[in-house]
């Protein structure tokens, strides 16, 4: 079964419908990117997946015993709270200093254990968040705009790190982003969200889809090759170009 699957979920706040009849599933080991403009319901979707919110209709199923590692959007750490990186990684409890050191290593920032969280640079902070998500050896890593506040080389390096993590640990990755050119090249599958699933498929397919172009224009197409990852399997295109919400197809791409 899928690691996590959402079936026909809808969420609205008052009269404002944020998500309408959204279905998606993540299989083990794949990198899935959800892209969408501001206000398209990306963050709401992620909150549903981690269990911070409940859908008004539809349902979310997790594989029994699923371990989720969650990397939030840039997190505000109040300067009145003194906390070392190691203490932060050990929350909410149960991890050894050795496990913390190993997770920092895997996230590409070894040796930060004794630093104060408030003294970290933006890039270091995001990697510490990544290390925290990795510490319990998750089956699924969820990233919410995890490179906000990083410059372009910084986010490119961060995404390379994510790919490396996937290679080493085999965990599935679901990330949410608006940084299309960087994210899409690293993904196995892209889901284009705008309140509903507009289209879905391999990066090349989605970036060529008219629904996607209508939302994002064609400007990012040329940057797709920024760092394409080097395995040449193929995906089936499932994007229905004569698109309407009720007839969209929701099967996994492979």
């Amino acid at each position: 079964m899928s690691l996590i699957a959402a079936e026909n979920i809808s969420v609205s706040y008052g009269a404002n419908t944020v998500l309408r009849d959204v279905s998606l599933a993540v299989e083990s080991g794949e990198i899935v990117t959800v892209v969408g403009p501001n206000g398209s319901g990306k963050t709401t979707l992620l909150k549903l997946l981690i269990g911070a919110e409940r859908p008004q209709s539809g349902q979310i199923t997790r594989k029994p015993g699923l371990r989720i590692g969650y990397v939030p959007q840039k997190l505000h750490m109040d300067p009145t709270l003194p906390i070392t990186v190691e203490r932060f990684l050990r929350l909410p409890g149960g991890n050894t200093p050795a496990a913390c050191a190993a997770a920092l290593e895997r996230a590409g920032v070894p040796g930060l254990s004794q630093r104060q969280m408030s003294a970290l640079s933006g890039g270091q902070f995001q990697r510490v968040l990544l290390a925290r998500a990795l510490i319990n050896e998750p089956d699924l890593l969820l990233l919410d705009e995890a490179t906000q506040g990083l410059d372009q080389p910084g986010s490119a390096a961060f995404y390379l790190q994510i790919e490396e993590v996937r290679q080493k640990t085999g965990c599935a990755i679901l990330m949410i982003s608006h940084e299309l050119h960087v994210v899409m090249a690293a993904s196995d599958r892209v889901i284009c969200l705008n309140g509903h699933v507009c289209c879905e498929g391999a990066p090349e397919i989605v970036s060529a889809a008219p629904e996607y172009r209508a939302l994002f224009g064609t400007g990012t197409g040329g940057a797709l090759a920024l760092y394409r990852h080097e395995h040449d399997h193929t995906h089936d295109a499932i994007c229905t170009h004569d698109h309407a919400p009720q007839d969209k197809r929701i099967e996994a791409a492979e």
Partner: protein
Amino acid sequence: MLDDFMTRAALAGVGVALAAAPLGSFVVWRRMAYFGDATAHAAILGVALSLALQISIFAGAVAVALAMALTVTVLTGRGYAMDTLLGVLAHSALAFGLVAVSFLSGIRIDLMAYLFGDILAVSRGDLAVIWGGAALVVGLIGWRWSALLTSTISSELAYASGIDPKREQLVLTLALAVTVAVAIKVVGVLLIAAMLIIPAAAARPLSRTPEQMALTAAIIGSASAVIGLQSAYTLDTPAGPSIVCVAALVFLGTSVLQSLRS
């Protein structure tokens, strides 16, 4: 030993400082200073009700402080900003409390004792209530420590770790209500927030981890209580405010230390 009123007063002050330290740290980290203040002000209504109904002041103060804190928590996010709600509820409760007290004929009430505390009049029974309440607060916060800390850092991270931040918020609210109720006798409703915030804020520059900060705040708070009482005795000043003054001086000291270091 407990026959000496100064010993009883010191023990009462230390008891409150111990409960206020870990709770006060969370109040500082979560920026709930005004929330603490408001809950404390509302407790005067609890005092008035207790006197009218002839129930224990501790019970009345806990009940009203809890009702106040829960009301604010429920109403927040329904169109009013938190600080507006707190301002309305806290000062209304304080005002209604003061008015209610004036209706209580037949009993001569020293209102000052509840507004500023009456630590020198602490009885053995009061001491038992204070240390019992303090043990409850420290136990509660100690039990939920990691979950509280995680939800303080980020509610999303908490959810992802299977922690419900709303439940942890309730734990803090309960601890706050109990702390307010036990601290009334010691520093009075107007200065309770000071005992929560000042030792924790003074401990911040000396700490590298959250645990260190709570522990340091407990030491600073306890020392302020003992030294404040001694000064009050020597200089013939009001005891509760003297304790707060000492804590404020420690805060000044550690802040200067920090700016010298950086």
